[in-house]
């Protein structure tokens, strides 16, 4: 079956190329007709790399040019993938100059907060990620893969990191009631053609948006767009809106690359043996066992 499709696609590509047009790639489909994005993926580029951020040692090594280690990608193996990756922007793309549209009072508050983070004045000032708090819409550990599962009415994005599972309801369900507040929010998805658009609300205010945005409000609202653009690449656009932080929404461009065949989720239980808090507060090292 796969060989037949490959031959058919190659033939179609040749015919279209002969006519002077770019061959159009279409993704494989689930039984209900939507793009089949299922499998194991490596997330890349999801971070708010703001320009003119407060100078802080927290941000060290984010911009040294060191690629953050993700060692389970399949690598780009098709010309379609290479074309999809070429000139691809990642990180903050709106605003294009990456100077975020802060509300002055929110900018002042986060700058003040950050002055107490290294060394942390108290537990409250320790980076959320260092406390194994759930990652919210931006954070996580991209040394770990993501897994997509689809069935009619649900699109599931499972992070290996810290057992996070996000279910995007695509069955027409509305959001849950406003009083329900969740670390990862409540997500509803709809298909716009072959793009899955995910609207997430009902966030609590307990997560961080990154090294320079240590907190946000419960008015946080995100819209994610997933488009499979080539066999090994899902384009991922993340729009972030928080009227208590920013005067208008910002957008991050990122992508998911296919992981190696056989990549399976392994437990990443952040809380298992973290020495971060003892190290940060200078408490004697406590062995795991």
């Amino acid at each position, binding site marked *: 079956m796969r060989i037949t499709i490959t031959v058919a696609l190659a033939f179609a590509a040749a015919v279209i190329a002969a006519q002077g047009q770019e061959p159009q790639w279409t993704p494989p489909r689930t039984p209900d007709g939507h793009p089949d994005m299922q499998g194991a993926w490596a997330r890349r580029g999801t971070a708010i790399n703001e320009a003119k951020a407060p100078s802080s040692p927290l941000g060290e090594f984010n911009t040294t040019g060191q690629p953050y*280690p993700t060692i389970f990608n399949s690598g780009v*193996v098709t010309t379609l993938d290479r074309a999809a990756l070429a000139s691809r922007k990642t990180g903050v793309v709106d605003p294009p100059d990456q100077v975020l549209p802060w509300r002055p009072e929110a900018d002042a508050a986060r700058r003040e907060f950050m002055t107490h983070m290294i060394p942390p004045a108290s537990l409250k000032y320790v980076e959320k990620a260092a406390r194994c708090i759930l990652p919210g819409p931006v954070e996580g550990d*991209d040394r770990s893969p993501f897994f997509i599962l689809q069935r009619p009415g649900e699109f599931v994005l499972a992070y290996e990191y810290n057992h996070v599972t996000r279910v995007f309801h695509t069955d027409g369900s509305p959001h849950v009631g406003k009083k329900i507040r969740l670390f990862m929010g409540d997500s509803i998805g709809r298909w716009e053609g072959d793009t899955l658009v995910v609207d997430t609300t009902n966030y609590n205010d307990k997560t961080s948006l990154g090294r320079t945005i240590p907190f946000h409000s419960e008015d946080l609202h995100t819209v994610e767009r997933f488009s499979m653009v080539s*066999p090994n690449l899902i384009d991922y656009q993340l729009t972030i809106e928080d009227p208590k932080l920013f005067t208008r929404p910002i957008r991050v461009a990122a992508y998911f690359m296919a992981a190696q065949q*056989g990549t399976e989720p*392994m437990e990443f239980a952040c809380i298992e043996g*973290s020495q971060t808090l003892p190290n940060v507060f200078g408490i004697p090292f406590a062995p795991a066992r």
Partner: protein
Amino acid sequence: MMIQRYLIAAAALVAAAIPCAAHHSFAAEFDVNQPVTLRGTINHMEWVNPHTWIYVDVKNSDGTVTTWHFEMGPPNALLRMGWRKDSVMPGTAVEITGYRAKDGDAIANAKTVKLPDGRELFSGGSAPGSGGTVDVPGPNGKKE
């Protein structure tokens, strides 16, 4: 035992400066201005989330021995880089580089571990240069 080394993909598939979601900040615990290179023998490894720890016995100039604690990447990251539980056995002589903890104790964030035969293993951790390679090229992805 063979330890796989993933080769850096010849085509620069990923630009060096792609921002990525990272676990907690290196700088909260460790000091980039205190690089360390130590020679010692492996005491043991703790394969535990969120960071594997490698304990190295280092002989001091006065003849005493200090057991240093080196933080490495998560067990899953190490496994996928080719590390196994028997990759470095207790008693193996190693040269280990990294950055010392801010409180100046015998704790550091590991960057590389060099084995007696000269092979270098990356720690998978958060210090610059500790992750080894990025994209694994190869035959396992979907092909055209």
